[in-house]
């Protein structure tokens, strides 16, 4: 049963050329992040003030920054930070989201209302500002950033999971399991959850995209990854002062962020289209 489902899903996904392009791009970036060390021509931290602020050339593909560091190498290493933050932060948010959503969806009544009130409350906060504030208080370290983004973005997943649980709960296979005496916890994880996961994949992918943007924004404002560690956001910030003279410090990091986020968005939307049964009839 499950094998057939994934075949059908792939057929629809493949038809969406943008999504496939996004997937290929995403895998490429992932590989770049892993092999950043091998691919970098120079050490990203190596300063050489005699070479400062040189435009892109054969020696330095993307130019050098104000301390003479090779921008290309820094960008390659920056991908590691962006992807790490993206994946781990989203991992945390999915974990919380599934937990809250499943509990709310399975055990209805007061537990559901309470949890949903909580979700509504959290949704009211301007997320970026909240994240900025908490990271500022707790100190900008990689872990803090990932955790804070994680605990402020679980709400979407929770809602979707809850919706799926609400509908799946009444289905025959669940009733059957119940009457056989299967314990609640087992029903949730072994029976309902696997079927409820579809929208989670969509939200997860799109969340990675937004997490990367948030990390870039934080780094830009000075509360993200701290220099000298290279993050696309802080290369941009450091390049701010030289914007009119060294355009390469501004254009490239932004471009990198754009392309990475774009790939995740494309894949996410592609997933959503492929998994949404309502849209099937049209193609």
């Amino acid at each position, binding site marked *: 049963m499950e094998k057939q489902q994934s075949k059908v899903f792939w057929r629809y996904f493949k038809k969406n050329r943008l999504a496939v392009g996004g997937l290929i791009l995403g895998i490429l970036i992932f590989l770049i992040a892993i092999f950043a060390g091998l691919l970098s021509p120079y050490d990203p931290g190596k300063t050489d003030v005699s070479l400062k602020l040189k435009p892109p050339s054969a020696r330095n593909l993307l130019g050098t920054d104000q301390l003479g560091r090779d921008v290309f190498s820094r960008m390659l290493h920056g991908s590691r930070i962006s992807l790490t933050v993206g994946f781990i932060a989203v991992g945390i948010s999915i974990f919380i989201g599934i937990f809250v959503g499943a509990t709310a969806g399975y055990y209805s009544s007061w537990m559901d209302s309470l949890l949903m009130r909580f979700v509504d409350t959290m949704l*009211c906060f*301007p997320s970026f500002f909240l994240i*900025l*504030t908490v990271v500022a*208080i707790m100190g900008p370290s990689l872990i803090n950033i990932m955790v804070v983004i994680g605990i402020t973005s679980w709400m979407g997943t929770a809602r979707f999971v809850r919706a799926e649980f609400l509908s799946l709960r009444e289905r025959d296979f669940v009733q059957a399991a119940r009457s056989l005496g299967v314990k609640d916890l087992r029903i949730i994880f072994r029976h309902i959850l696997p079927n409820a996961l579809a929208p989670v994949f969509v939200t997860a992918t799109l969340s990675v995209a937004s997490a990367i*943007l948030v990390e870039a924004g934080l780094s*830009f404002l*000075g509360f993200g990854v701290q220099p000298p560690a290279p993050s696309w956001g802080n290369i941009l910030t450091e390049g701010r002062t030289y914007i009119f003279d060294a355009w390469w410090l501004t*254009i490239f990091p932004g471009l990198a*962020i754009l392309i990475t986020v774009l790939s995740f968005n494309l894949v996410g939307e592609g997933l959503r289209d492929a998994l949404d049964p309502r849209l099937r009839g049209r193609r």
Partner: protein
Amino acid sequence: MLITLVGISIISWVVITQAPGSPIALTMDPKASPKVIEQMMKNYDLDKPIYQQYFLWLKKLFTGRLYSFKDGRPVLEKIEERIWNTLLLNLVATIITFSLAIPLGIFSARRQYSFLDHLGTFGAYLGISAPTFWLAYLLILGTVELFGYPVLGMRSFVTEDFTTTELVLDRIWHLMLPSIILAIHSIAGISRYTRSSMLEVIRQDYVRTARAKGIPEEEVYYKHALRNALLPIITIFGFLIPDLIGGAIIMETIFAWPGIGRLSYQAVLARDYPVVMTILTISAVLTLIGNFIADLLYGIADPRIRYR
């Protein structure tokens, strides 16, 4: 809704005062004499039990007695000075957004699968994925290189000699860039939303009927289909507010626009917690109200939902 309100205030307060590495202890100079420390603790109510601290904070918030750490002025006063600037910016951005996004969405929907549609869709994806501060700098680079005109702040430096018309033009000029960039992200999102909403509506029977009746295509789209397609967009309205405040932080900082986005960023930098807490709470409350109004509007617009 009341519970949510209370929840908001509690979370705000807990986050700021109880988070590890927090504040109030840090703002006190450890080298100060015990008497000074005691005085400061009294001022900030730190000598009272936790739950009392929360209520005292609430009381101060509502009576406007909450003072900024940075310069001792009442927080509400500081906010009041700048909130209109931010609202202005947001208003312009919102107008730009909706006047462009909806037509774009409809345009895309009418020509589904055409080259223009794909172009538009791709453009929308770019808009959603581009980091706003990057776009801001690109635009700044572009306009300064092209026009050589200053772009920061709300008005140019030498304005005493300007005539009224020039003042107004100057003000508008400074408004344009940040609003446009704020708008891009929203336009991208909303145009896609409009497009899919329109696509769904067009498949409906009543649209077929309208066409069969011989109603001109324009009217079918703009009068009949649009009304129903716009419904889901109303719900997004409620969520626009927190996004705008968050997005404004970066924009206002880059363009040196004196609004509450910039105020909050400076407050965070200066660890000015009363200001930060207040802005956080106020934005959350505004969002709540926004959602509430959106729900009301939706109920008015769609009679099917009215009787819950």
